[in-house]
């Protein structure tokens, strides 16, 4: 089974399977039904972190120094715990600013600087070359080993191969072709590669499965469980030191610490990790599951490393088998062909996953952040005039992929043989760690400037190059070894592996300490030397304050200029195609309720910002800026203006709150006014009624008076008797008029509250008899009998005596008025009710119908046929009585039935209570 052709065939079949998965996922994505919109797929895609280094190299390292391989996985676990704070911020920023790569992120943060983007790209490419070479080495070595089956021969022993026979070169070329087909079939505006994500999620499962399979087999088939392996190891003199107690736990503690820190940074800043974690992320919420699923994956794939390592050492005691190959050679030596094949595919899986994602990420950076900005600036090429640049972009990316892989192979040839896999990988880790200060500083510190970031990156990279890359080249013979032993030009203090005499550290720790010192020192120092420019300040705000910004158009606030919508459409179409540009504009217009293209779009700051964002998704932030700037006449915003805008914004917030409050108060006040207005209108109506009625009432007697006076004047020959009669009428009418006017005045006083009240203690019995006596003449004239009924000891009331007399007078005269002469009987009774004194005036007149009862208390209303039975009153009497009684806190009403007389009653509160009531009213 392990013959060459079979292995090759199966390898290609596996690659074909990956391609099919990617193709399917891309098709689903285009149809809008994404396969990868799942937190589990997302977490699995993050496991691209585990490469051939994990698959082969961990065992290699463990076999040499026990748990020394673990920090590389524990570090990420710890960093991922911080992802909730750090990564969420990066995710949010990247989505808002349409970031397409790590270089784009850094360039965008520091004022959309193309120079910075270019520097980051170069550092990333050079730094990752060792890592890529590691993968090539692993795949080609494993292939070579498998080919030697059933012999176990290490590839190194086979000697250096001529170029064309070098498996590694063919692996590099095949992977390049594969990656090109995988990742550069078309341009995606947001740099999403859904197919790639699906494929590497699948690969993560394959490599985990393969590793677990061989781990289980070694532990429980080859040996009898963990206990068996470790007991045997304990009795082996060579292996015993590796078990606890370890000398300073696998090297020195400082080594341990720095390795942890290094891995913490690598999980963030490896281009492939940034790509899958940030750029390919579909939903921020997926981060939740990833925070624990991904560390769990790492735990699972590392459980069997130590058993395999020790098992291998025990199995190959002679030491002629590289520990890096144990996962493969153990099954092979035991003739487990299927298992060996599975392991081979697992290793292939791990390596291809890394290469695909890393080269796609790097080629995107090379295209968007290195080459395109440079090309756009060369006016001679006239690129800004070309109608369609998508072909050019794809071409650049494909070229970049091939170039990167060939460079990786070149590194492999030059320096790859000197080190074990893990050491090679750590060189790359240290390179990408140089991005940490400017990125982490960039999202938390607004003071970081472009110059500072540039200084930090260059300083850190220089130190890295000197302390890690140079020694690797020197050790492989491409540079004189004296460089390492005596320092450059014999200067001992500048020895690459012991700068300034700091010796005794392993080379990774040494490099990390010095490079971080240089990097952070330069970044902070240079940033503080000058204040950020307007552009930087704006970008810094957008990044650092991303969680407190309300909407995506935040960037639009910081722009000013003149533009035309058709020009913006053209520039967008040039890079993403007319269809996509139309779609984008339609979406923008829809959000504003404008029907485009029938209606024109306002080319304001928001539209320019929107177009720039869309463009950034295709060609990177700095290039997008250049392109948009070419169609827009921009006016530079000074720093003060930017600050003004920010201040304005915060002021606006304060003002709007004040405004809200004022408008609430205003509403309340206007409600009150409305109510008052209603009341006034009502009163006005009543007043009009009153005036019209009064004038009518006044006019009636005046008319009579005038009429009769005229008769008297005009007819001197009138008979005396007639004359007496008429004068009598005139007198009576004037009396009536006077009475009416008095009553009206009285009523006006009562109703306006300006009447004077002289309240005294009154004995109702006395008062009533007084009034009855005073009216005795009237009673006599009308021959009406009056009876007074009142008990002794009725409590006093507190009231105005004259007014009460007025009431009684009115009631009694009414009673007399409506009694039949000669047969009338009036009864006045005074009685006590709980808390009140009650007075009733009963007559045996015709009675009052129910309908009339309601009416008689109203102003100017009288009962009786006004034609035949012209009453002498004014119609105001009862109304006034009611006012008076009610003012004293009492009640006035009538009880009557037609034909059975009427009984007018009123109550008054007893003295004590009334005084309290009066007191309350006055207060």
């Amino acid at each position, binding site marked *: 089974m392990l013959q060459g052709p079979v292995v090759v065939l199966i390898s290609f079949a596996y690659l074909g399977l990956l391609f099919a998965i990617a193709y399917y996922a891309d098709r689903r994505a285009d149809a809008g039904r994404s396969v990868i919109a799942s937190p589990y797929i997302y977490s699995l895609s993050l496991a691209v972190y585990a490469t051939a280094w994990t698959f082969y190299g961990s065992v290699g390292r463990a076999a040499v120094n026990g*748990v020394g391989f*673990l920090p590389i996985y*524990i570090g990420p*676990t*710890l*960093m*991922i*715990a*911080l992802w*909730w*704070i750090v990564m969420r911020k990066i995710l949010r920023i990247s989505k808002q600013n349409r970031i397409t790569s790590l270089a784009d992120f850094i360039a965008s943060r520091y004022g959309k600087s193309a120079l910075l983007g270019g520097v980051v790209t170069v550092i990333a490419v050079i730094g990752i070359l060792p890592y890529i070479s590691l993968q090539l080495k692993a795949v080609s070595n494993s292939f070579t080993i498998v080919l030697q089956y059933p012999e176990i021969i290490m590839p190194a022993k086979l000697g250096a191969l001529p170029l064309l026979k070098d498996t590694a070169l063919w692996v590099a070329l095949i992977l390049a072709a594969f990656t090109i087909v995988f990742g550069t079939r078309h341009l995606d505006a947001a740099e999403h590669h859904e197919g790639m994500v699906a494929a590497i999620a699948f690969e993560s499962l394959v490599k985990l499965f393969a590793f677990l399979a061989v781990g289980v087999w070694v532990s429980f088939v080859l040996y009898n*469980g*963990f*206990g*068996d392996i*470790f*007991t045997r190891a304990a009795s082996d003199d060579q292996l015993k030191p590796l*078990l*606890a*107690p*370890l000398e300073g*736990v696998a090297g020195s*503690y400082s080594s*341990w610490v720095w390795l*942890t820190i290094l891995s913490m940074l690598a999980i963030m800043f490896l281009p492939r990790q940034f790509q899958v974690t940030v750029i390919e992320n579909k939903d921020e919420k997926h981060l*939740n*599951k990833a*925070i*624990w699923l991904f*560390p*769990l994956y790492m*735990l699972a794939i590392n459980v069997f490393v130590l058993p395999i390592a020790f098992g291998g050492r025990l199995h190959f005691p002679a030491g002629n088998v590289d520990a890096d190959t144990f996962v493969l050679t153990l099954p092979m030596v035991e003739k487990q062909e299927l298992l060996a094949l599975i392991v081979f595919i697992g290793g292939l899986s791990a390596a291809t996953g890394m290469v695909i994602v890393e080269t796609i990420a790097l080629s995107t950076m090379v295209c968007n952040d290195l080459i395109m900005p440079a090309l756009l600036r060369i006016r001679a090429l006239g690129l800004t005039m070309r109608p369609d640049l998508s072909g050019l972009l794809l071409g650049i990316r494909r070229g970049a992929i091939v170039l990167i892989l060939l460079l990786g192979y070149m590194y492999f040839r030059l320096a790859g043989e000197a080190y074990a896999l893990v050491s090679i990988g750590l060189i790359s880790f240290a390179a990408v760690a140089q991005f940490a200060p400017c990125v982490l500083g960039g999202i938390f510190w607004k003071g970081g400037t472009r110059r500072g970031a540039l200084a930090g990156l260059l300083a850190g990279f220089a130190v890295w190059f000197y302390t890690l890359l140079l020694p690797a080249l020197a050790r492989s013979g491409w540079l004189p070894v004296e460089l390492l032993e005596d320092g450059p030009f014999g200067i001992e203090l500048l020895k690459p592996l012991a700068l300034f005499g700091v010796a005794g550290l392993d080379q990774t720790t040494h490099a990390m300490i010095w490079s971080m010192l240089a990097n952070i020192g330069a970044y902070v120092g240079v940033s503080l030397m000058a204040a950020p420019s307007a552009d930087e300040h704006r970008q810094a705000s957008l990044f650092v304050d991303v*969680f*407190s*910004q*309300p*909407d*995506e*158009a935040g960037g*639009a*606030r910081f*722009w*000013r*200029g*003149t*533009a*035309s*919508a058709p020009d913006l459409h053209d520039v967008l179409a040039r890079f993403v195609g007319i269809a996509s540009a139309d779609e984008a504009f339609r979406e923008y217009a829809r*959000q*504003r*309720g404008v029907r485009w293209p029938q209606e024109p779009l*306002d*080319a*304001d*700051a*928001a*539209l320019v910002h929107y177009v720039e964002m869309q463009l950034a998704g295709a060609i990177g932030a700095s290039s997008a800026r250049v392109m948009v700037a070419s169609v827009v006449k921009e006016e530079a*915003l000074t720093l003060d203006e930017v600050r003004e*805008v920010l201040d*304005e914004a915060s002021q606006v917030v304060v003002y709007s709150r004040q405004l809200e409050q004022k408008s609430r108060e205003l509403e309340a006040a206007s409600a009150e006014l409305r109510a008052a207005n209603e009341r006034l209108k009502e009163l006005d109506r009543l007043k009009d009624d009153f005036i019209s009625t009064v004038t009518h009432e006044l006019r009636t007697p005046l008319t009579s008076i005038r009429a009769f006076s005229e008769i008297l004047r005009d007819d001197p020959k009138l008979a005396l008797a007639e004359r007496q009669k008429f004068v009598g009428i005139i007198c009576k009418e004037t009396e009536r008029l006077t009475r009416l006017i008095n009553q009206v005045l009285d009523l006006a006083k009562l109703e306006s509250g300006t009447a004077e009240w002289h309240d005294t203690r009154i004995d109702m019995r006395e008062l009533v008899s007084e009034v009855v006596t005073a009216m005795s003449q009237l009673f006599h004239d009308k021959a009406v009998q009056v009876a007074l009924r009142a008990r002794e000891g009725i409590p006093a009331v507190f009231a105005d005596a004259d007014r009460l007399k007025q009431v009684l007078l009115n009631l009694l005269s009414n009673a007399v008025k409506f009694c039949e002469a000669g047969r009338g009987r009036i009864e006045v009774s005074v009685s006590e009710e709980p808390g009140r004194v009650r007075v009733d005036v009963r007559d045996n007149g015709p009675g009052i119908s129910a309908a009339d009862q309601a009416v008689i208390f109203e102003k100017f209303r009288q009962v009786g046929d006004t034609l035949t039975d012209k009453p002498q009153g004014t119609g105001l009497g009862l109304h006034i009585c009611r006012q008076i009684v009610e003012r004293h806190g009492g009640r006035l009403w009538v009880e009557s039935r037609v034909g059975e007389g009427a009984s007018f009653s009123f109550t008054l509160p007893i003295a004590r209570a009334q005084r309290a009531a009066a007191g309350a009213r006055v207060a």
Partner: protein
Amino acid sequence: MNGSRRPGAGRGTPVTAPGGSMTRPSIKGPRLAALCLLGLLLFNYPVLAIFNVHGTLFGVPVLYAYFFIAWGALIALMALVVERRD
């Protein structure tokens, strides 16, 4: 065409945010940061020195067992903090 003279002025209808981005400050962040610190303590000197002793746990050397058990426990705690309804 239309030029805005004052920043932000003269814009069309403001685009409403797709759900505000003002999130309630969650306690998950600080808790997870505490777990990170815990991890840094657990996987460094001097705690490691405590477990750097002879002996085995289920047949596995104590140090190795400690690593994986502590690592697993840390992951479990992280899962607990993250998956809890806020």
